[in-house]
């Protein structure tokens, strides 16, 4: 199968004053297109940093990352943004909706950034799909946590991304709502054939994925294929 993400010998160092802190070291793995992939590990193990670097949100210090066939090292910030806009989707623990936009407008943003006309038509379909057909004109502050995360899901899938990065997608939700959101996430993943990369503390959630990568102290301790695969 085709590899959609290839990470080789990745190293990331943060400098704080005169001190240098290596947050990721010697990370190598790859993800097949259409599969689901979980990154787990304790707090401070470098999960979110790894997710961000894989999505081209920051520069790496050593190694290479190839995302959707593009070497991220060779792209500037705007080229990386374009790649994200066309091929990548995001879901965050705290939803990260724009507070000044309605649910419908939030879902339309990535399409609008692509210059798609009739963005709201596609956005409405997605909101209907996540069960928020009656909430188009609600602002984030008027929605519950679960509803906000569903809007975020609709936004993430709005551009039909090849790969979707989710950072603790159920971290701010109660168990029941969390389960509903996860079901929706995997349903959409299957329906659209999107590769899924999830950062999580929740081992039950991790086990739903085809692959699990366990990090500790910035290093890979386990890279395994789970039973469901």
């Amino acid at each position, binding site marked *: 199968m085709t590899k959609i993400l290839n990470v080789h010998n990745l190293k990331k160092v943060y400098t704080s004053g005169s001190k240098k802190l290596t947050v990721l070291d010697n990370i190598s793995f790859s993800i097949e297109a259409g599969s689901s992939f979980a990154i787990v590990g304790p707090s401070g193990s470098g999960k979110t940093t790894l997710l961000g670097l894989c999505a081209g*949100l920051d520069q790496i210090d050593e190694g290479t990352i190839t995302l959707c066939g593009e070497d991220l090292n060779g792209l500037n910030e705007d080229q990386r943004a374009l790649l994200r806009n066309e091929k990548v989707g995001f879901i965050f623990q705290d939803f990260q909706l724009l507070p000044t936009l309605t649910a419908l407008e939030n879902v339309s943003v990535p399409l609008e950034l692509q210059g798609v006309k009739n963005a709201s038509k596609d956005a409405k379909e997605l909101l209907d799909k996540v069960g928020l057909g009656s909430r188009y004109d609600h602002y984030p502050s008027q929605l519950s946590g679960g509803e906000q995360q569903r809007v975020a899901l609709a936004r993430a899938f709005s551009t039909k991304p090849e790969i979707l990065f989710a950072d603790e997608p159920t971290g701010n939700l109660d168990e029941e709502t969390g389960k509903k959101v996860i079901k929706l996430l995997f349903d959409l993943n299957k329906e659209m054939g999107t590769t899924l990369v999830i950062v999580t503390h929740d081992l039950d959630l991790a086990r739903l994925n085809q692959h699990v990568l366990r990090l500790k102290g910035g290093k890979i301790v386990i890279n395994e294929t789970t039973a469901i695969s």
Partner: protein
Amino acid sequence: MAWRDGKASGKRLLLFMASIILGISAVVSIQSFSNNLKENIGLQSKALMGADFLIDSNQPANERVEELMDSLGGADAKEVNFASMAAFLKNGNTKLVQVRGIDGNFPFYGELETEPASAANSYQELGGALVDATAMLQYNLQPGDSVKLGDITFPIVGSLLTAPGSTAIGATAAPPIIVPFRFMERSGLLQRGSRLEYNYYFKNATIDLKQLDKMVDPMLDAENADMDTHTDTSERLGRRYDNVGRFLNLVAFIALLLGCVGIASSVHIYIKEKLKAVAVLKCLGATRKQTFMIFLLQIAGMGLLGGLIGTVIGLLLQQTFPLILQEFLPFEVEISTSFQAIFVGLSLGVIMSVLFALSPLINTWFVSPLQVLRVQEDTGKKSRPYQLWVMLTIILFVFWFAYWLLGRWTFAAGFVLGILVTFSILGLVSIGFMRLIKRYFPKSWSFAARQSLLNLFRPNNQTVVLILAIGIGTFLISTLYFTKDFLLAKTAFETNEQSPNLILFDVQTDQRNEVANTITPKGLPLIDNIPIVTMRLERIKDRSVNDIRLDTTTRVNKWILNHEFRTTYRDSMIGSEKLLEGEWIERVDPNAKVIPISLANNVANDALVTIGDTLLFNVQGKLMTTVVGNIRQVDWARMQLNFSIVFPQGVLENAPQFHVLTTNAPDKKSSANLQRELVRKFPNVSIIDLRQVVSLIENILDKISWVITFMAFFSILTGIIVLIGSVRNSKYQRIRESVLLRTLGAQSKQILKINALEYLFLGILGSGVGVLLSLLSSFLLAYFVFDTPFVPSYVPFIILLPGITLLVLFIGWFNSRGILKSPPLEVLRKEGS
């Protein structure tokens, strides 16, 4: 604790402080300069007049006045002054000047400042002239050149820099020329019709001026003379500058108020972010008072420091005022430190910042420790009654301060009301505009355009405050331009051949034809030939003018009693007149006992007369009974000869009179040629060149508007500081939004565009609301105050609106630079933590 917390929020508190610094520096600089001006006027009181007191009259002292003056020890110096044409022989130029013929060792206090300095003493002996220094420069004259006044040519012995009794602004209209009095009679300029003023100066430092004034003035009034003491002059001058000072103080106070609104808005956001910390402190056992005091002390400290810095800047700033205002000041102002202004600056800093911060601060009082667990609890309801008290206290304080500045309850109430109405209108219009735009903004516009507009509504936005601050500044400046423009349009005269642009005064009856014969052969039209007869009022209805003068309860305006009226006679009304009451009478029988006359409505109002009332005039010795036959409205601003009293034809034809002739010279060259020839042939004739008058008015309005623009700039600057504060306050949120957009795939230029458009909207809204409101206020000013049609000037639209918008765009963009540079992952990690 207040200090520790303040240190942690140092940068933001500094920005709050900046909002108040500008306002305080404006108030202190104006306040201190006004105090200095008042002190200087008091100190230089004698030097301003040049004597202890003077007696003035429009005619040479008669026997009775001579006797009175003798009883006071006789005048120590005398002067006659009048407007006349001067011809500069070196280059043939002519100019309307103020001739001051002086006899004696005037001035006794202060000095005639001349170049060379010796000319001030030698001009009397040499029989020379001291010519205004600016006119010397303008006409390229040097000592040794000659100036012709009437029939006499004087050698110029020096240039006149300053002289008691001459103001710089007056000198722009008719520059003064000082010559020895002894030549005046021979000059042929003291003729009938010339508006002469005789001053008799006295030097007597020991006399009780108040007592003297009380005793002598009524006697002089009866002889159409007047007494003026140096204290009267300085008090009059003091009052005049006091009014200007108060006006500027109010403008400065508005800038301070705007700064305070900025503070209130920033503190509101600051405190909102601190509410959780307050709840935690309360959980740990801090009392309401303790937590309240932490922030109150911070704000008071910030106000004190802001007041201190503002005061220092204000004191430095006032050093520049004499340069800015020199054209308006009759003397040099020595700047010293005014302790009153320092006190005002410091106390205003503390009081205003605490007062305006109180409203958000009250929320800390009502924060429940429970909010550590449930942040959403609403404290607003509990604090509402207290907020109303705070609002009332602010209004009362503003009212009290305005009263302290203006000295009248009604004016102070008017000011507070005006401020409330203006702020409310601006606030409501901004909110209305924003809602309309949000609602009707075309959905088809680009994402960047729509997103930037929505940014104006982000949580904790300060959009309304910003629009208010930018709007007030723009409003002040643009009202000024509109007003200046329609005033100039009003003074501008028609350029067609039948509209006069040269007015010839003081033409004697026997010179009439000769003057006309000088004009017409040049192909220039003789447009008007208006006879003028001077007269004074002797009785109004059944009371003598002297009697009314002594009546302290009379409401008859004093000028009516002492004025020498220049009247004319004609059989019809002219374009600037409109009949209000009564009937126009064309002609009466020469032997009529009572003559129906026409009064301008302002004269009828000031004299308290109406149709049918009798007025007795003294027409140069002959008494003439008249009755008010009609009342006219006169557009005095129209550039033509207007009269407050018009007689019908038939009665004044044989009275002693002089004439005013008017013509139209198509260009400057033909105008100068005609003026040269007229001055040569008829030295007594004065010429007013309306072209010069218009440029003179333009010049004066320009200077006044400079001062007001200077003050309005303070409020624009305050707006800019509030803008910087607002961008800084929302910086984290802006970074979060832009990172999120970049994560979702937005390009740098898209984010830059969103940011730029947001400031562009803000600038357009602020300056647009300001310009639109100023259109309304200028229209009201034109309609109700100046009674003139309002044609809006284009300047605010093509310069002010884009100029201020670009300024806001630049400031906003400059302060948002860091937003684009923040790496997305850093922000996401912070969010995640």
